[in-house]
């Protein structure tokens, strides 16, 4: 019981030190953001392989935006986001209006200081990217670290201009061989024991 109480107490202490977003003075909502960035993502080929293929990403201020709309930007964050089809039946990738609780854009591509000129990037898809359908979103981050504007390579419903990524399998031939060897060892040692015991029993019976 002592261990249980200790575990419980340490968890309470731990949990009170976990940041709670309810204490934040201002909550960043997606719907509050200005869609003032124009983002494109082009690729070669239909299905891209993680770790191998490349996507060319460009972003710039929209021509329709007001003159000093980008005065608030300090940095831009380019993120890889799940398309709705990759979110179906996967509540851990849910889109949430409150940006700190949003789980739909977990993969960060790059974070750069903002330059008032069109920028581009040739990005090789990260090897740890899981299989899925994606689009690219760029957030404009203000001085206080919160998002103030965004742009994405797809439309508002996230149906156009999507690209698929094929993740790595994680398997290796050496792993497969090792697992076969150990399985054979397991069967083999069982057989050896059984044979030994049968022999011992026969010897004892003869005595």
């Amino acid at each position, binding site marked *: *019981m002592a*261990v*249980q109480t200790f*575990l*419980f107490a340490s*968890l*309470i202490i*731990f*949990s*009170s030190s*976990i940041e*709670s977003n*309810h204490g934040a003075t201002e909550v960043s909502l997606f719907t509050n953001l200005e869609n003032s960035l124009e983002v494109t993502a082009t690729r070669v080929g239909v299905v891209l392989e993680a770790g191998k293929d490349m996507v060319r990403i460009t972003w710039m201020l929209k021509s329709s935006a007001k003159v000093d709309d980008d005065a608030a930007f300090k940095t831009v964050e380019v993120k890889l986001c799940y398309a709705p089809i990759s979110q*179906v*039946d*996967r*509540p*851990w990738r*849910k889109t*949430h209006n409150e940006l700190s*609780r949003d*789980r739909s854009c977990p993969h960060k591509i790059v974070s750069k200081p903002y330059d008032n000129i069109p920028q581009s990037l040739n990005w090789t898809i990260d*090897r*740890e990217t*899981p*299989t*899925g359908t994606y689009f690219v979103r760029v957030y404009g981050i203000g001085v206080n670290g919160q998002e103030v504007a965004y742009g994405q390579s797809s439309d508002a419903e996230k149906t156009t201009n999507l690209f698929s990524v094929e*993740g*790595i*399998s*994680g*398997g*290796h031939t050496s*792993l*497969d061989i*090792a*697992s*076969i060897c*150990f*399985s054979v*060892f*397991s*069967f083999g*040692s*069982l057989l050896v*024991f059984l044979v030994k015991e049968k022999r011992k*029993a026969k010897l*004892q*019976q003869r005595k």
Partner: protein
Amino acid sequence: MAHRNEEEGSIGTSMHGVTAKEHVFSFSDQGEDAWSSHSVQSDDPTAMFAFPVDSEHKAKMYPNISLHHLVPIIRDNLDLTKTDIGNAGVASVSGAIFSRLAMGAVCDLLGARYGTAFLLMLSAPAVFSMSFVADAGGYLSVRFMIGFCLATFVSCSYWTSVMFTGKIIGLVNGCAGGWGDMGGGVTQLLMPMVFHIIKVAGATPFTAWRIAFFIPGFLQVIMGILVLTLGQDLPDGNLSTLQKKGDVSKDKLTKVFWYALRNYRTYVLFILYGFSMGIEMTINNVISEYFFDSFEQGFQLELHTAGMIAASFGMANFFARPIGGFASDVSARFFGMRGRLWTLWILQTSGGLFCVWLGRATSLPIAILAMMLFSFGVQAACGAIFGIVPFVSPRSLGIISGLTGAGGNFGSGLTQLAFFSSSRFHTADGLSLMGITAMIFTLLVAFIHFPQWGSMFLGPTSDSRTSKEEHYYVAEWTEEEKLQGLHEGSLKFAENSRSERGKKAAPDGTSTPLENENPANV
């Protein structure tokens, strides 16, 4: 006698009333002179016995629980949906329903040692084959196959039930079962560490989790070898040796099965265990995800914190289940079997109640508190159930243990399917509904009635013939079998089970006239 005092003493239980005539095993027919050979040959193996069996359990839970913490990595690697994960969870516990039933029969006929070792070493390849899995179908099949090794629970509880006496059986089964289930909690702590070390060594996450799976595989093979080399089936030796010497009778599978199925208490225990162990297994499957993904609840946690919380749920087994078994034994001392039944009802109902509270929790500290109380209630209830199982039928002990164990898996599969596999309920609502269902089914405890000891609300029968323990236990043997003397083990068991009368038990050392001739107590 020396060896048995050692075992009992090492568990730290009361030994009141231990006389020279107290027998531990259900089948053996040792005479007076065999005691001397006990202290010579059985000393070492049985003293070491306790360890292979207990740590054995831990190895059993490893492969199954290893997955839970790594699921966020695995679901990305294999592109799984919530339905895939839910189905795999159901599959992992369903495989064990059949294997637990089969294991019960194997124990009755071949002994617990072979049963355990075969299962461990034959299912180790399933654990190793995790490295091949590439999609949802493969994931489901491998989890199904790994689930088979949960049957070691049956062989271990059978093993402890034949090695230890009825007065402490609650505590013993509680320790063996509880420390085994604790293995689940240990895994939740260990696997992330192993995974992290492998990642640091240079592997990508999608490879690292596959490598991490070799650890439980190794442990399984090692435990299988230890069981074969260090264990023995019965206090007097191994089953095949004793059967050849004629000390233990060989029983027929059909008979053993029939007497288990004929006893209605088997079915009640099947359902009851489904709502103690069953919901415990379900929680093992859903709790890390619940804490990690609970953005709906308003609290977000890092992966390792969620893992830690889930681990503490499993770790509570170290105390909770033995305490449940111990509480069962203590209540039996005062109130006999009725005490055991009430203890079970109280523990399991409070488990269900705290499950409802967990579902309703809105803040992290409350959720954790509810979870700890829930874990204690439910795990102690598991311990209490196995304080009752050994008394239902010594002849079919294996099958009944197997059926009860299978009930746990069945309950887990059912609750996962009903409450956690679709997007119909939020996980939190699923928890509350599961708790309410558990409380309703726990009312079935009131229906367990023994003619010689009574039940929760009724006393023992007043008929002088049927109110004897011997009548209940010998009723499982036919006249021809009795003529052959095959029922001797049951008679001895009946004599020892008189302790389940509580305070009204006849003082140890004196005996009431038995139906057959036996050496009179000195």
